[in-house]
């Protein structure tokens, strides 16, 4: 393993992989969403473009690519162009810290299935995912028209107020695993033999609800659904810039699903690590388990979108301040107490 390969080729390869991985997931996600919602409603969904409509997202992307890219005359050009990149970059950056599986030993060199591992990986991922809020504000403000501005402000208030319960529930996990390092959390779950999702169901549910709200999805898709009245922050965008926002939203969903899987359902661990009888499942590589779990949560996203009506904005905020945050606090205290007594 010449140093050249170890120091240059593999990291570059990993970086390309980390960028391609969300892109592929986004394409899969677009197809999954249109197909699953259709099947749930008794229709067939896209099945013309490619086998069972698999190429439909590609068709959408190409269409968006060639669409005319209109920039409002009075728009603040700099911010207008930056915000989609900001939103996209923050989501992609966060993927660097997401561990996909056990490190693989090739000869003397161990290939770690993540780019960076840091003792505060959890904090960094949360921090990056809230940077995309800037993109939303700049995008809404820069398009210089009243609908996107109102839509942007609304989604910002929604995202910020749902970060508190997210933060609290993530703390309970870090509390149990005694570390903020994502890899460490998964290892801790492996050694303790039980997933935190089963240990702390309340944390999982509160985290999941606020995660869905943070990505403006399912029952909380106020800003985007309000496009009938108050258009979402990406109204003035068209062509590739709109595609960035669109892809960033899906990338953010994939990121949040992988966070849920890592924190609460033991990243790449085969199901029920504690049970000896299920050891034969270890033969399947960790990466596959990780993907299966993520697909389940992405499916849950779409499933919720097909089922639930939309919250009104004020009831959404009332829900988080009256229910979710107190619940998260109580849950945090309970976990702390249990942890202290044991």
């Amino acid at each position, binding site marked *: 393993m010449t140093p050249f390969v170890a120091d240059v080729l593999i990291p570059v390869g990993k970086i390309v992989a980390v960028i391609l991985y969300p892109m592929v997931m986004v394409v899969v996600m677009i197809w999954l969403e249109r197909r699953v919602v259709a*099947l*749930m409603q*008794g229709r*067939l969904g896209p099945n013309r473009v490619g086998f069972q409509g698999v190429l439909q997202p590609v068709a959408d992307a190409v269409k968006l690519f060639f669409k005319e890219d209109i920039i409002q005359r009075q728009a603040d050009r700099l911010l207008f162009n930056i915000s989609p990149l900001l939103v996209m970059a923050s989501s992609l950056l966060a993927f660097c810290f997401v561990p996909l599986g056990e490190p693989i030993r090739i000869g003397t060199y161990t290939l770690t299935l993540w780019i960076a591992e840091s003792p505060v990986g959890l904090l960094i991922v949360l921090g990056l995912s809230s940077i995309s809020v800037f993109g939303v504000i700049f995008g809404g403000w820069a398009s210089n028209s009243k609908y996107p501005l109102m839509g942007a402000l609304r989604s910002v208030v929604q995202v910020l107020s749902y970060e508190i319960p997210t933060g609290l529930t993530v703390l309970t996990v870090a509390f149990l695993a005694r570390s903020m390092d994502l890899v460490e959390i998964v290892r801790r779950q492996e050694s303790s033999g039980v997933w935190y999702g089963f240990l702390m169901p309340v944390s999982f549910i509160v985290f999941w609800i606020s995660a869905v709200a943070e990505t403006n999805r399912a029952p909380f898709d106020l800003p985007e659904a309000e496009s009938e009245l108050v258009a979402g922050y990406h109204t003035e965008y068209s062509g590739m810039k709109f595609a960035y926002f669109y892809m960033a939203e899906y990338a953010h969903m994939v990121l949040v699903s992988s966070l849920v899987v890592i924190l609460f359902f033991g990243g790449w661990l085969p199901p029920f690590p504690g049970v000896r009888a299920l050891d034969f499942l270890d033969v399947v590589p960790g990466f596959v388990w990780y993907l299966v779990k993520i697909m389940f949560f992405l499916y849950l996203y779409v*499933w*919720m979108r*097909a*089922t*639930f009506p939309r919250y009104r904005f004020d009831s959404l905020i009332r829900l988080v301040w009256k229910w979710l945050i107190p619940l998260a606090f109580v849950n945090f205290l309970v976990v702390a107490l249990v942890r202290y007594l044991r």
Partner: protein
Amino acid sequence: MKRIGAFLKSFFLVDMVRGLAVTLRHYFSRKVTVPYPEKVQEPAPRFRGLPRLHRDETGEPLCIACKLCQKSCGTNCFDIEGRKAEGAKLMRPVKFDWKLERCSFCGFCVEVCPTSAIRFSPEFRLTGVRREGLLFHLDDMYLQGEALQEHLCGGCRRQG
């Protein structure tokens, strides 16, 4: 007791889960949509498709140019001229202009026609590209199937 029951139900999101169960059941149930070009849903026997003129077994047009259909049509789609060839007993239409774009498929012409020369056909593909395609002259009124589509949009249809 009822209040506690209600609280528990709302805490464990029972109403949400019931909703999810419904959509999941539909996820696995039979789909309703018919893949149109491959599988065509046959219209009912009484289906009011494109009105067509008909001929009797000997090939003689049934229409006797009595213009009853022209009078009974609410949106005056018809413009008929009839002439009696010498020696013939009945009049025959010489000119029979019918505008599909004005027709509301109300069926009065079919009901009122004494020789039931004009009848509804099960043809529901009425789209065309050229405006002239929507104006039917005497011999166009007998077109059926692909020839009809040919007339409607003048060869614009993708082959195959």
